[in-house]
């Protein structure tokens, strides 16, 4: 009775922890490839540029539109509330806290997840099912160089740059769309934001999007690689991938709330 219970718990633990271990392996191998300067290899560089185009550049319009919509609403309500309360000196602080710390990184991670994460899961699963990963093995091209590094690196760079673009567009676009109705000049608005920027905010601006983008990238590759035998597996892996990514984004968010 006890033996079967222990065996059952053990089996579930091993089964559940396998994806996490696989993700750690993918991340570790990516870092090894990065440290080994594989990025300067002609094939790896070419693949990375191609991935950056599809992950970062093509997501730019969606990020700008989202930033404009969310920025307009956030800036409008924050300015309306704070100016009506006479709390002019808190405007920058609240804008930084909402747009830089929370809305920007989370929105960009969600856009990356839905747009590029799903594409990566499908692409990697297709490569596995079609035997293209075997071709790479036959040509002696390691997966860490051709599959992992270009995608993880592009996601990381996309996470950082898209979040930066999101914050700029939401803050500036937000003011020019609806913010100028409020009782505050543009100069004053900018001064408030620059005055409220602290080193902590810059660290969060760099590290949080990076962590979230890495989580999306590694999980997407892992889910794609976990497809077993048929294309029928892909939709379930996609759904699982999205659920796990949302969970990971929440975990990163909670970690930052606890430690900041």
């Amino acid at each position: 009775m006890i033996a079967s219970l222990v065996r059952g718990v053990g089996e579930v633990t091993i089964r559940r922890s396998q994806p996490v271990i696989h993700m750690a392996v993918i991340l570790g191998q990516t870092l090894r490839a990065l440290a080994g300067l594989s990025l300067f290899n002609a094939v790896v560089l070419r693949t990375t540029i191609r991935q950056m185009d599809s992950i970062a550049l093509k997501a730019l319009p969606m990020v700008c539109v989202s930033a404009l919509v969310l920025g307009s609403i956030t800036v409008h309500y924050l300015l309306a509330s704070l100016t009506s309360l006479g709390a002019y000196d808190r405007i920058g602080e609240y804008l930084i806290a909402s747009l830089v710390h929370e809305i920007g990184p989370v929105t960009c991670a969600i856009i990356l997840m839905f747009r590029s994460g799903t594409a990566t899961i499908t692409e990697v699963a297709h490569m596995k099912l079609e035997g293209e990963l075997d071709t790479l093995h036959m040509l002696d091209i390691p997966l860490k160089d051709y599959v992992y590094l270009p995608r993880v690196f592009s996601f990381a760079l996309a996470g950082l740059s898209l979040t930066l673009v999101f914050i700029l567009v939401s803050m500036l676009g937000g003011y020019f769309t609806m913010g100028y109705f409020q009782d505050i000049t543009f100069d004053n608005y900018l001064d408030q934001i620059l005055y409220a920027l602290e080193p902590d905010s810059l660290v969060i601006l760099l590290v949080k999007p990076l962590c979230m983008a890495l989580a999306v990238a590694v999980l997407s590759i892992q889910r794609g690689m976990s497809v077993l035998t048929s294309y029928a597996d892909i939709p379930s892996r996609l759904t699982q991938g999205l659920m796990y990514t949302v969970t990971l984004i929440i975990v990163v968010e909670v970690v930052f709330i606890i430690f900041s």
Partner: protein
Amino acid sequence: MDFSYWLNIEENLLLTATQPGRIQQLIDLSHQSNFHIGIISNDYPLLSHLTLAENVALSSMYHQNLTLTQVRKRIQDAVEALDMASIMDSPPARVTRKETLKAFLLRCVANNNSVVVANRPPHSETEDLLAWLERLPRRMRLWVTCLDKHAPAYMDFTLKKIAIGDARRQGVA
């Protein structure tokens, strides 16, 4: 498996085995041949997101850090010999089976393989491969693998028959 013995044979070979596992073992060992041996098999397809040229050049670009242009220049003669120049920028999904086979062969040319292993090819493809190998500027040998029971189908080609795992090294012309 006596690779060194087979590599010293100048003729094209028909490598037969009683079980598919033996052929797979040969294919697996070919991976470790330091690019002496290239493989033509549907188990190792072209990458669908690359063009034929990129597929052909991939290994050279990675291992020798060459640009695509450099590799294309190096294999230009072979590309022209196989009448592939006009479709090298097409994706694999848009080419015929024969053109895909030619791309497999060009991949071996780009990798400087001295031997090409065709894994259980149909009769017509074996005929095509032998003809195309004749047209290439650099000599490459063909090793055709098949099961014993399918060997008679290849008897009309000039292939030296060797049984995989045959310790007596008996060749039957």
